[in-house]
């Protein structure tokens, strides 16, 4: 479990204890605020707006990165795991890009 203690090292260090707790709390507040931002952006721009969709999906990516890097400790473990995570995202993105023109072009516009 030594690797998991990168974040939670020094069990007896009160400063570190407070720092980790603070990091979790900040991420929690940020995630809550970002959720509210998505909701408000949707109310302002309405469904179907490209600008609104871009902002909302951008906010979703930031939220996912916050959860991944802080709550899932990827900030400390990334260099050990990137070789597994990155290919999954690359192949997934490629699949969408490759299939998208096929079905989109299949419809008469």
């Amino acid at each position: 479990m030594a690797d998991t203690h990168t974040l939670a090292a020094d069990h007896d260090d009160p400063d570190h204890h407070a720092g980790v707790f603070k990091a979790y709390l900040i991420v929690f507040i940020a995630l809550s605020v970002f959720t509210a931002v998505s909701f408000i952006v949707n109310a302002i721009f309405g469904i179907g707006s490209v600008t609104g969709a871009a902002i909302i999906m951008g906010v979703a990516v930031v939220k996912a990165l916050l959860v991944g890097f802080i709550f899932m400790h990827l900030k400390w473990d990334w260099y050990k795991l990137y070789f597994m995570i990155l290919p999954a995202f690359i192949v997934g993105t490629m699949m969408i890009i490759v299939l998208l023109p096929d079905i989109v072009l299949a419809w008469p516009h």
Partner: protein
Amino acid sequence: MTQAAHDEPTVKMGLPMSNGKLAMWLFLVTEIMFFTALIGVYMILRNGTPSHAEPLRWPRPHEVHLDERLGALNTFVLICSSFTVVLGHFYVIRRNFQRATLLIGVTLALGFVFLGIKAYEYKGKIDHDILPGRIGESLASRKDDAGKEGTLSPEKERLYHATSIDYYERVRGQLKEIKDHGPADDKHVKECAELLERMNGKDETVDGKTRYVSPIGAPELGERVNHILHEAEHDGRTLHIAPTVPFGNLWASCYFAMTGFHALHVLGGLVIFSIILVMGLRGKLGPQHESMLELTGLYWHFVDIVWIFLFPLLYLV
């Protein structure tokens, strides 16, 4: 030989992390691929609709009875649960098992709240008959906001014709059910009875001349059903008639596939949290469970990330 083997230096293979954590990340990578495929297919189908103009476009959330407030609430619930689980792990590391147990209990409760809201949403879909294969696809009017007629290829017209025949007979049964069991003086029941009558051909005598009036077609039926449903909803009534929503069946398939698989993952997490909670309540939670809590937390955060993307894709954009 034995002595020689003992003398060889110990070579530590693999990554500088526990086997359990590595295995969990490998599992999560397969899960990333699984949900990327689901979400990717949804994006492809959604962008594959022929027009962004009404009515030949992907269904809007309100047309399929999706409430973005419930989606946002569920997002917040999962975020709270992610926070409590990460704190639970934090307190296990600090050997405060009592607080860790409490936080796991809160996580479990939040998970059940999430599933409860999801069940409420599913019930709404069942009540409004927004289920895969049950929704009408053809509407009489296919003009967009600019007055341009929307067109489909002959192949797709044929495809929708087959769907329309099923829809026609299903709605006939639903209207008959409302007519037979609803209060006869209710205006919505009367409308349903009138529509049911129009679904049958009949001879009509006007100025002494008898002529045959054909039954209404599926696209016109769709328009009239939507009108009845709209009026009923305005009066706070829920009528169990399948609506007509272009691409509604495709939407429903995507919605239930994505949220259903996600809910199953939530349920799986809750089983593990229940086990941890029972151990905590019996005073059996100890330093040896630090890894278990961390790995369950990793899984739970992943489930949270999936919902972070499902929420905007289904409810907002």
